[in-house]
């Protein structure tokens, strides 16, 4: 599983301040730190703090790339901001995200095709997040079909089955697991899967433990990527271990270090 480091987000105070003051220090520190701990992508989210999302996104992308060679995951509901980010990305980026809503899919897949970007597709429609796996998979299929229609390789599509906090949406848990499994049957090669990991533990008292356990359970159901705290040592050790058990990496005694140091 690839970790998409979530820390460069205007929701965090230090990043909001950095954006307001155009001081890249905090952004670049987090970029380096997440890269050094094995993240595969860096999520970039301007957050609620600014009004001009387009130029904020552009700036964040630029300064992040000065500090890290990781690809970026452009996280916004404002597609103009995403496009501004795509323009300055030095390597193919990931678009985060698009729901299974026709006009949004049209815009996003067009952009993805133009910039050779990957796409996170959400298993939700205008009606919201479905409860059962079957409806989630149906929405995933719509995303797959639209992706295919734009000539984008299905392996560039990441489906997010959408996770709800386990203290309010406990019954969604098994449905999410089932969705992860079924998505792999959608096409050949199948789409990839991604989750926003910390959603599962929102409002609970055991956040890190829940995140970690959910991550390995989801991995064994085929999860490919997670937007997560890329500096959580225990999470990273758990993911590295799950990768060994699932025969995704070749074992050696220092496998945790190898996973962490993969970007060095």
């Amino acid at each position, binding site marked *: 599983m690839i970790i998409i480091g979530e820390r460069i987000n205007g929701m965090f105070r230090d990043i909001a301040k950095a954006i307001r003051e155009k001081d890249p220090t905090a952004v670049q520190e987090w970029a380096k730190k997440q890269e050094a701990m094995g993240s595969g992508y860096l999520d970039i989210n301007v957050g609620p703090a600014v009004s001009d999302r387009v130029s904020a996104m552009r700036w964040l992308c630029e300064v992040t790339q000065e500090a890290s060679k990781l690809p970026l995951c452009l996280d916004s509901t404002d597609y103009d901001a995403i496009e501004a980010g795509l323009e300055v990305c030095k390597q193919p980026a990931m678009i985060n995200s698009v729901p299974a809503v026709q006009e949004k899919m049209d815009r996003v897949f067009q952009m993805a095709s133009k910039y050779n970007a990957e796409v996170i597709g959400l298993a939700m429609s205008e009606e919201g997040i479905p409860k059962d796996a079957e409806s989630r998979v149906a929405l995933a*299929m719509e995303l797959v079909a639209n992706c295919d229609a734009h000539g984008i390789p299905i392996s560039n599509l990441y489906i997010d089955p959408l996770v709800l906090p386990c203290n309010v949406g406990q019954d969604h848990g098994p449905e999410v697991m089932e969705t992860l499994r079924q998505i792999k049957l959608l096409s050949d090669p199948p789409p990839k899967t991604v989750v926003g990991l910390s959603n599962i533990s929102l409002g609970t008292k055991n956040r890190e433990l829940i995140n970690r356990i959910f991550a390995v359970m989801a991995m064994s159901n085929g999860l490919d990527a997670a937007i997560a705290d890329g500096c959580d040592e225990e999470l990273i050790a758990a993911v590295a271990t799950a990768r060994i058990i699932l025969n995704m990496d070749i074992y050696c005694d220092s496998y945790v270090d190898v996973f962490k140091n993969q970007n060095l």
Partner: protein
Amino acid sequence: MGLSGLEIFKQLPKTNCKECGYPTCLAFAMALANGKASLDACPDVTEEAKEALASAAAPPIKMVKVGAGDRVIEMGDETEIFRHDKRFNHPTAVTVEVKDTDDLDARLAVINDLTFERVGQEYSVDMIALVNASGDAGKFKAAAETVKGKTEKNVVLVSEDTAAMEGALDVLAERKPLVYAANKDNFEKMTELAKSKECPLAVKGEDLNSLAELVDKIVALGYKELVLDSGSRETSKVLADLTQIRRLAVRKKFRAFGYPSIAFTSKDDPQEDLMQAGVYLSKYASIVVLKTDKKEHLLPLFSWRANLFTDPQKPAQVQPGLHAIGDADENSPVYCTTNFSLSFYLVEGEVSSTRIPSYILSVDTNGTSVLTAYADNRYTAESIAAAIKSTGLEDKVKHKNIVIPGLVAVLKGSLEDESGWDVTVGPREASGITKFAKEKFA
């Protein structure tokens, strides 16, 4: 491997009429992909769609047979790119080329005699490829007669001339030879010949594109017992083509390449010929046709084949029993190991490099290594003592001393009690044997 939801969905009527019991065609497609429904439940699926789905569900590479009776050779039916992912199923058929201009009596006598025994396995040449080098149909037919009379081996008939093929095929049809080859000019007639005699047919392209086109045309004529030749003859190009054929069939289920493949060496020098054959055998050829008929060339090739086509999930075994290394006699030392091939070979290699004639007693541990077999109660004082008895070791040597691996030093006492032999604890690793032997036996 099942079909994906998208593949199935594309074949459904997409009317969402709910007849199948599912709310949408998509839901039905997913149920099919999950193996929870059957296609019959949808009344509106077209015949075409059914056929497309059935063929997409077929194995990626068709099994094709050459030969008749108990000499049948199965080819194809492979599912892997890498041996370690599961296993390669059907060993490459090693085929020696002869020409209708050769002194066939002499050559066939040599080839018939090409049988080898090595580590308890017997190999022989699988097929001969009879080449219409004369270009003369009558000669080819006469040569086919000679082949029929002088060898029981399977045959590849090599001629792109349909008249010549027809004559030779008449003679040898019962052997179910491989008809080589249909090309872009003769394929209709060749297909008809192969089809009427129910023989496998090789398809020869000029490159991968023309090969795929030709296969489609022949399949459209209703024949599917095919073997593929891209037409390339340079080593690097053949490697690339064989790799593409295997990959496209297995990974993309590309139907035109879902058949076994054949590769010909192109060298006159027999050693270089062997090198090329080694490459093609390593990388996916179902049949390799080479020119050398020398034992000293074919033995290494057969050995490589035997190794490559073993099942990686099963530990490779050697024949349990007593193995003499060099001119072992009644005074020679006796080493004891398991019948796991890697352990045995390591010990054998080290013992033979001591240059002291010796015996190795290989105890049947079902192919497991010393420590595994010890933990598993297969390598015990009792099993070793029984092997000493059953192999007649007591009559072969005058002494009563046996060397056991250092890893199972704990067996010393119980084995001495059980067998009445003196037990010497050897080195822990095979690499220590040379030094050990020098001190003990030199």
